[in-house]
């Protein structure tokens, strides 16, 4: 792994840190959701600072170039993240739909009760 490549990895990690910290500061990202990204950045730094770790694991599964091993890891992590996000979106969508339905149903219920109450008041007056 060339020194330039290692510098790029660290720069990448710094960019990720900066973005995540900014979003955390503005509370546009929850702490729980930031954990993934912070660990991701830490992993990039570890790969840059201790290439021996990368060499060890790439050797273990028979990948000649350690940079390819890093690619593989990053892609795998992104796929996992994408998958969990899809699941999360489905679950949010379900809850959003139920909420919208309940708002409409309760609105209607309240409206009906108001109407029957008014009618009975009108009848009493008569």
């Amino acid at each position, binding site marked *: 792994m060339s020194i330039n490549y290692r510098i790029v990895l660290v720069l990448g990690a710094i960019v990720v840190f900066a973005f995540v910290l900014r979003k955390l500061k503005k509370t546009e990202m929850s702490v729980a959701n930031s954990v993934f990204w912070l660990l991701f950045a830490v992993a990039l730094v570890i790969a840059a600072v201790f290439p021996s770790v990368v060499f060890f694991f790439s050797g273990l599964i028979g990948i000649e170039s350690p940079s390819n091993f890093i690619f593989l890891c990053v892609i795998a992590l992104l796929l996992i993240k994408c998958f969990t996000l899809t699941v999360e979106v489905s679950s949010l969508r*379900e809850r*959003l*739909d*139920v909420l*919208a*339905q309940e*708002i*409409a*149903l309760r*609105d*209607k219920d309240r409206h009906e009760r108001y109407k029957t109450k008014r009618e009975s008041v009108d009848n009493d007056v008569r």
Partner: protein
Amino acid sequence: MKLLAIIPAYNEQDCIVETIRELDRVAPDVDILVINDGSTDGTGDLCRREGYNFLDLPVNVGLSSGFQAGMKYADRQGYDCAIQFDADGQHRPEYIKPLLEAMEQSGADIVIGSRFVTKKKDVSARMAGSALISFLIRLTTGKRLSDPTSGMRMYNRRAMAEFVKRYDFGPEPDTLANLIRKGFKVVEVQVEMRERETGESYLSFSKSIMYMARAFVSILIVQWLR
């Protein structure tokens, strides 16, 4: 039997009034519930002005969830059955009675107003899709449905309960396949439909591919899991 006509409406200001007027005239005993699915046109205002019985969804949730809201209403209000009826005038109210009679006589859980029980399908891309879905349903359930994509379907309380409690369970062919496999009785009755006059179909052309892909996955794979 107390019947509710559920009319999903998304931006249907041009045809909703005429559809309901005709429904009121032809089938006066049927209660109507319009589902205003977060329309951005004047549909909601029209419903208020005309004094329709309607649900006002605050955001657009799509046909499946909009229809589910209607089924929840029907269930809570104790209706015996509910029919899905299109806002755009495709469905003809004179066929509601035959559907209801078929439900009472056959004891079916679901009655489909089908265009092709006694008549043949015309040749078009849309009908090729319909035939393909028929084939898939036949393959997985053994049941022959001539018009699985018809939107005019009547459900009894037992079927209603499924729509209320399940999610991702729209008024679509894959749902029929799932219910048939679970032992629900489905009957088809010959009806005629009109070509839609105004508005844009829920199923625009660009969405057809996605619709078919979803139907494939749902009928061939998902129904074995749920």
